[in-house]
């Protein structure tokens, strides 16, 4: 009995030794040289593999960082400035300051504002609904509400609100990786500069139709009346394709445009309430008849 055990132990040990030697030589033979700094930098990155930097994953981004002369155009939106600074330090380079961004939805067509005109019966997938037809409302630009952005978000920063049937982006969780922007078939999610206290002023509409049809489809549509352009002192607002756009870099958050907007399509978020209640919201407005 003891004899058997000894033979077993010895033979197995020899086998293990042999395997180890073979493995060692194979590892030597097929060794690929890799810059050790890639591992180092990769360790600093968030390991989310979200693709927000434009590379397939964190490792590819780390390789790009190591190879790059300067960090221009390379940014990890998830880690933001601190991570980029650390990576820069590790590689002895300098990281340019990139403003943190946050995703915003350029549509505010809740069921009350944007009446439903048909019922979509099919797979809850925005791409399919978009390929099929205009959507459940008469607005061919607005949110379809099937939640492709929610599926695309790997950070759990988007959920569908039951009351508004629109996706809600949680600012604290959003890392501006841009996956939702790519996923949205109607391109109505924008990455905007993050401001203090998460304050935001933007035109929550993507409708490029003229005033009449836009307004008929949705009460809070931008009708391109140019009132906001006139009131803005900083040239931050432009109108293109019947749609106003507020340049986040020029905007000073004076909030005049939001007060002026006759349809209420300019949203202001995370501001303290204003004291004099704006009357403009209730003003009756004339819209251009359909041309």
């Amino acid at each position, binding site marked *: 009995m003891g004899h058997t055990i000894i033979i077993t132990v010895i033979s197995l040990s020899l086998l293990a030794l042999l395997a180890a030697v073979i493995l060692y030589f194979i590892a030597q033979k097929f060794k690929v040289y890799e810059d050790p700094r890639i591992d180092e930098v990769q360790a600093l990155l968030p390991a989310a593999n979200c693709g927000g930097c434009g590379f397939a994953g964190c490792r590819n981004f780390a390789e790009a960082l190591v190879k790059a002369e300067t960090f221009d155009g390379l940014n990890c939106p998830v880690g933001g400035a601190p991570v980029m600074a650390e990576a820069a330090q590790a590689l002895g380079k300098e990281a340019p300051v990139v403003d943190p961004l946050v995703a915003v939805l350029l549509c505010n067509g809740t069921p009350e504002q944007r009446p439903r*005109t048909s019922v979509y019966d*099919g797979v809850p997938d925005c*791409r*399919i609904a978009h*390929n099929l*037809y*205009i959507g459940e409302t008469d607005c061919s630009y607005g949110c379809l509400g099937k939640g492709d952005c929610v599926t695309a978000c790997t950070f759990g920063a988007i959920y569908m609100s039951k009351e508004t049937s629109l996706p809600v982006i949680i600012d604290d969780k959003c890392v501006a990786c841009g996956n939702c922007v790519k996923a949205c078939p109607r391109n109505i999610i924008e990455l905007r500069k993050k401001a203090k206290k998460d304050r935001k002023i933007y035109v929550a509409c993507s409708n490029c*139709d003229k005033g009449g*049809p836009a307004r008929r489809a949705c009460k809070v549509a931008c009708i391109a009346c140019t009132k906001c352009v006139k009131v803005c002192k900083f040239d931050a607002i432009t109108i293109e394709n019947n749609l106003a756009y507020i340049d986040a870099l020029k905007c000073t958050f004076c909030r005049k445009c939001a007060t002026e907007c006759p349809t209420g399509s300019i949203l202001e978020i995370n501001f303290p309430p204003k004291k004099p209640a704006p009357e403009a919201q209730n003003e009756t407005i004339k819209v251009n008849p359909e041309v």
Partner: protein
Amino acid sequence: MIDATGFRQTAVYIDTRGDEWIDTIDRSGDINREIKLSPEEIIQKCLETGIVGLGGATFPSHVKLTVPAGKRCDLLIINGAECEPYLTSDHRLMLEKGEEILTGTTILMKALRVTKAYIGIENNKKDAIGHITKLAEGFPGITVYALKVKYPQGAEKQLIKALTKREVPSGKLPLDVNAVVHNVGTAFAVYEAVQKNKPLFERVVTITGKSVPKPGNYFVRTGTPVRFLIEAAGGIPENTGKILSGGPMMGKAVSNPDIPVVKGTSGIVLIPADESLRNEMMPCIRCAKCVMACPLHLEPYLLMTLSEKGDFERAGRERITDCMECGSCSYTCPADRPLLDYIRLGKSTVIKMARKQMIK
């Protein structure tokens, strides 16, 4: 103006006052069998009068009639197999305008310089087969064939296969197997254009549905809102859940009955509310019924999974672009899976990807 998908399109509004006809159009009911024009003139005429394929795809007919250099055409096929269930417009047309259709066929034969034409009619239309066969005796070169009743028999490639055993290769045209297919509606339109000088501005539209008071086939001018049409057939019934432009298998559900009839509108089908919603989707049981049903011998279950998961490259290799969206897979699926929804998505994505590569 909005189209069947609800998106806005540029359109011309025509305000009609009374009914005036230009003198050049022959409006008499006489049947004129004598063909005076040369092949080139016939093709030119089709272009001028705006003749398109009336089966549903609305492909310009003059393009189909022009055989490109290097290609050979020895056979004209006239499609008398109704392309979809529920629709009867082709059937009606064959019964009422048989002689015109046959003359139109002869015109098309002349334009294509072929001596042989087959007319394929599905077996369930015995009266049409009898009628056309009798008439065809007076037209040299035209033979009528009875086809098995199955869906999709009216699809171009299926029809060619059924009549000639030739299979049109993937991504190729019927011309590559030396055949050209035209719908009976197109043959009729060609007759009217060439012999009567009448442009294509009206077509036969089937209006049907379980709850429609007066279902039937109507001669409708293009541009007529679908709502008028339904009113002519007795009005929109209370319980309508869906209005389809086209047949039940491939037609589009419209979100607004104010859309106009276009050249490709072969039918308007009203579906009652209780039948308009889909059943709940169940897990795939891998029964392979979709594989058996696919007329192009693709594997719908696989294509659906691939597009759902986003592997469009492999979907392309599995020939997702061959799919003609006949809907047989979704129809037959016992688990009510939306196979075609995802296949369409995959197909459009694959085509987009291929275009991008071409540009590169």
